[in-house]
């Protein structure tokens, strides 16, 4: 027997033992597998130029996509506000998936509810689910705000969130003054970053309604966008504190997604205070650290809040320089010396280590803003992007990224592959290595 009580083997070692290797051989008898030579031949072919051409010719099939759907982004934005419960109008399975995905990624609890719509709702609409659902979640989880979005089920049958929420409030499900912002987040439009944008706009619209004052409060708003690394938010807060800037983070989910273990479970750790978020309409300016996960939000702020909206993505040295100078310009405060020293240290680290990265060719994939920022940083190190795959791409982004590539001699060879998935990327990489 493979197991020895003194040294218990995990699956990897266990299944390499001769007993299991024999078992795998035995099993082949019934599998009707292909001849190993044939598998080898086809495996080689999948790495060929011929395969690449066929792979890029597909029109209907998506394999290993590099994008998810809207509601996850909406829930991600929502939990950055104080005491906020994400509520998804539609089938419950989606929410189980979102919670699982976010929980697994962050190793943190992630709360969210659905209105558990089933066949009857598909026929009669989901209004009753909304009425019961808001009542249950409000009484049970005592949220300060319930942020509602949809699954594709509710979208296909045409549930009208605005009307439903009004009806539910009139039915007494939740107090009239409880903020219940909403966003329609059909999964067949855009991706998770679209959902982030829709929900951010929905929440800001609801919270700031009627809060515009004649004078500015002098603050700066920061919006991180769909940035899943909470350390970035903490760093922005630190930088703002060093400056002595009075600021508001719109959707500060850094505590929610990285909470201390105190021996007690808090369902709503941290988050932007609702009153503070409401007052964001009176800020001096809003600095948005991602462009492509916030187009509607930015348009709304510029138009309705009547304040400057600046996109500044502080990744790498140049972009961080611009970010700091922009903050200085907006606030009239000098750039703190401490940050200048840190900058020097970072540049020192880059010059010390550039030899390992300079001239290295790389491929990259991800969301537009993240890819843009990392490519910018890599160009500063003298690395050469070759293939850039962005599944949830758009023309504006590609133009912007191309301009960045053109600004550096190291960006010459790069090709942007918008709307392509990771199976396309595989073909690109295989052809590279052959």
């Amino acid at each position, binding site marked *: *027997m*493979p*197991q*020895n*009580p003194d040294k218990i083997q*995990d*699956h990897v070692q*266990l*299944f390499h033992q001769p*007993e299991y290797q024999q*078992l795998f051989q*035995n099993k082949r008898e*019934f599998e*009707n*597998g*292909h001849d190993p030579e*044939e598998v080898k031949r086809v495996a080689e072919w999948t790495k060929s130029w011929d395969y690449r051409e*066929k*792979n890029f010719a*597909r*029109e*209907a*099939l*998506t*394999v290993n996509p590099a994008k*998810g*759907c809207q*509601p*996850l982004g909406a829930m991600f934005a929502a939990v950055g506000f104080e005491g906020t419960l994400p509520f998804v109008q539609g*089938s*419950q*399975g*989606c929410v*189980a*998936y979102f919670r*699982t*995905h976010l*929980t697994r990624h962050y190793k943190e*609890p992630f709360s*969210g*509810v659905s209105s*558990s719509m*089933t066949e009857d*709702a598909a026929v009669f609409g989901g209004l009753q689910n909304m009425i*019961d659902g808001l009542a*249950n*979640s*409000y009484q049970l*989880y005592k949220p300060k705000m319930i942020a509602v979005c949809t699954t*594709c*089920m509710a979208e*296909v*049958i045409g549930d009208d969130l605005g009307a439903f929420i009004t009806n539910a409030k009139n039915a007494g499900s939740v107090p009239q003054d409880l903020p219940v912002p909403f966003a329609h987040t059909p*999964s*067949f*439009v855009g991706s998770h970053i679209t959902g982030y944008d829709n929900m951010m706009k929905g929440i800001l619209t609801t919270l700031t309604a009627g809060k515009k004052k004649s004078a500015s409060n002098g603050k700066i708003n920061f919006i991180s966008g769909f940035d899943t690394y909470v350390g970035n938010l903490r760093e922005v807060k630190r930088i703002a504190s060093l400056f002595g800037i009075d600021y508001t983070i719109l959707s500060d989910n850094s505590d929610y997604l990285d909470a201390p*273990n*105190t*021996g007690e*479970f808090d369902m709503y750790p941290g988050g932007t205070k609702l009153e503070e978020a409401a007052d964001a309409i009176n800020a001096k300016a809003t600095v948005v650290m991602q462009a492509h996960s916030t187009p509607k939000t930015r348009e709304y702020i510029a138009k309705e809040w009547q304040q400057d909206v600046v996109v500044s993505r502080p990744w790498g040295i140049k972009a961080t320089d611009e970010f700091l100078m922009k903050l200085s310009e907006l606030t009239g405060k000098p750039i703190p010396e401490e940050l200048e020293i840190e900058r020097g240290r970072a540049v020192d680290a880059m010059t010390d280590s550039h030899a390992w990265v300079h001239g290295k060719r790389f491929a990259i994939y991800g969301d537009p803003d993240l890819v843009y920022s990392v490519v910018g940083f890599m160009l500063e190190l003298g690395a050469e992007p070759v293939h850039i795959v962005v599944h949830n791409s758009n023309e504006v982004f590609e133009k912007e990224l191309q301009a960045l590539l053109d600004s550096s001699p190291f960006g010459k060879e790069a090709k942007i592959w918008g709307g392509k998935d990771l199976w396309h990327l595989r073909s690109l990489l295989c052809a590279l290595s052959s």
Partner: protein
Amino acid sequence: MTPPENKNIIEERKELIKEVLQAYPEKAAKKREKHLNVYEEGKSDCGVKSNIKSLPGVMTARGCAYAGSKGVVWGPIKDMIHISHGPVGCGYWSWSGRRNYYIGTTGVDTFGTMHFTSDFQERDIVFGGDKKLLKLIQELEVLFPLSRGVSIQSECPIGLIGDDIEAVAKKAAKEINKPVVPVRCEGFRGVSQSLGHHIANDMIRDWVFPRADQAKKDGTLKFESTPYDVAIIGDYNIGGDAWASRILLEEIGLRVVAQWSGDGTINEMLMTPNVKMNLIHCYRSMNYISRHMEEKYGIPWLEYNFFGPTKIAESLREIASKFDSKIQENAEKVIAKYQPTMDAIVAKYRPRLEGKTVAMMVGGLRPRHVVPAFQDLGMKMIGTGYEFAHNDDYKRTTHYIENGTIVYDDVTAYEFEEFVKALKPDLIASGVKEKYVFQKMGLPFRQMHSWDYSGPYHGYDGFAIFARDMDLALNSPTWGLIGAPWNKNTKAKAKAAV
């Protein structure tokens, strides 16, 4: 079964249920009340309602029919391509979530860890996706010629917009000369993933077995029977579970013809109607097809439990009893062979785990099947419940639990947290969505869907890992670090490290 430590325990726990229910609006409390109870010895059932729609707006761990079909039953069949048909999200967020191990060359002759989708856009919702689906299957055939078939896993919009995926499946199957199986597992169907299991089973019955019948008629099914042919049904090979089970069945002299569906192939499925007996581990997800094979092909089925040495030995003997004396003797030999190792494992870990209490909440099988494995280590179950079990599961559960065990069906996050606060179990065994809630409370936790990325837990080899994992969860010194020592008024309820 042992008597309760305290005669009033049943009353106390019933009182606890009442208290917990007070947090709900009246209408919701009335509905939830039927799903919560305390098991009383001698009763034929746990006394809870099940398989009923979850309350809107209340946190449930439940998934949907798509999760039951794609995630559980069809997805692990490794040489077929399973299309997540509809928008991109369902397949994306569930991608490789279940650790169904397999052997093969991914992307060439096996496809288990890949995500294929029709990535519906608005125009597909408006104009329908049937044309796109047919084209997609044609493209699959060009890029993945060694696949042995295709399944179409419908997401919510497919049923709502009225696409005819059956017609596409028939047409495509003819064109590519491989099975193409349409599965109407839209997420809004039913109340949980459970209906997805049933629908998936029915599609095997209607779209796979007719091929098997035809092949048998034509004499093209290359299969020579032996008296010892069996199939493993309802093992998804999480962390290699089915392999750690199969090795024991083979060792007692049985010939395992098929594995459903972890590391399984479509050919194994086609051969299954020829076996002498179906051995079923996850009753909830695969009883339907086992019953069908019994009715149509006269194949008996037997439930077994390979968690923990007590149940493994019992199950091996019961399985062997259905075969001849050669198999029975072999079973005794195998049990005797592994017993010393099992004794050594128990001797090592039982002293570290003895008397510890556990509260569990998992899918449709493990809340009962794992109980004896904990008991082998001296641990005691004080609460258990299922996400999506049916009435027959709760009847079966009575064989596993003690008097006074609190039983919760489709427990809500709120109820589970309140029960844990009151019962103070030493270990929680549930899923990833629950894991960090309880760890934040300072409570040891193990994921019982995915084995917390460990495993296997089935079979003798698996029990060794199970015992080690429970020890590392319960006896980690990290629990003793929660709460700063200088904070005298710390409310941390963390238990001191052992």
